[in-house]
């Protein structure tokens, strides 16, 4: 099995988790989108897109730099027969699958772990005691 074949399996798992997170976020965001103005929704989308763009760019550049250093000083070696032979410097292109997977998997898990957006719980009891006191 080649490095790309292994990556394909893991990237497929990541893609499924990513898709689940996208659907979840979409369903959860429905109420927020309905209650806010079109300008606010557009603004949030632009913010998200630009943010993701910056993060992806920075992580890929950092991967290129540090992977080259790590291979250069001999922390890791590869079987030449199992890699495609496409390199970024001396780093096999396949190594970038880790960075791509991290960029999709981790925020997806974060989204899936979050419950539906609800008003903050701790504030509710304080309000009720205040109103009770005011009534008495």
């Amino acid at each position, binding site marked *: 099995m080649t*490095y790309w074949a292994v990556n394909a399996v893991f990237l497929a798992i990541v893609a499924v988790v990513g898709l689940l997170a996208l659907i979840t976020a979409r369903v959860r965001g429905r109420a927020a989108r309905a209650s806010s103005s079109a300008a606010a929704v557009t603004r949030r989308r632009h913010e998200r897109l630009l943010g993701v763009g910056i993060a992806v760019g920075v992580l890929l550049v950092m991967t290129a730099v540090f992977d080259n250093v790590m291979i250069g000083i001999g922390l890791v070696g590869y079987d030449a027969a199992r890699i495609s032979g496409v390199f970024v410097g001396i780093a096999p292109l396949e190594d970038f699958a880790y960075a791509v997977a991290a960029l999709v998997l981790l*925020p997806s898990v974060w989204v899936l772990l979050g419950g539906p957006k609800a008003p903050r719980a701790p504030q509710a009891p304080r309000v009720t005691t205040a109103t009770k006191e005011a009534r008495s």
Partner: protein
Amino acid sequence: MGFVYLAALLVSLFGMVMLDRRFALFFWRDVPRAAVTLLVGVVFFLIWDVIGIDLGIFFRGETSFMTGVLIATELPLEEVFFLTLLCYLTMNLLAGARLIAAVVLDRRTDEATS
């Protein structure tokens, strides 16, 4: 026995924690949620590593920069810290870049209105 690589990873991780604390990026947003996310990420990448090593795709280099402590065949102790750093960095980056994006867009709107 070399501690250079492990020390570099620990220093970088410390930097991640400081950035997280300063800008409330990951653990400082939600501790249990961040802990589970990080754990899922590290375990996922460790499995990926083990399979890659098992198939003979990559292997630990013979170097004096590593402690030589192995947690599995050809899997150095340092890899756990490296993967933790990769995951922490990814989440800090995504949250931090979002903050930067907000500032950039604010500035652009200010310029357009002034």
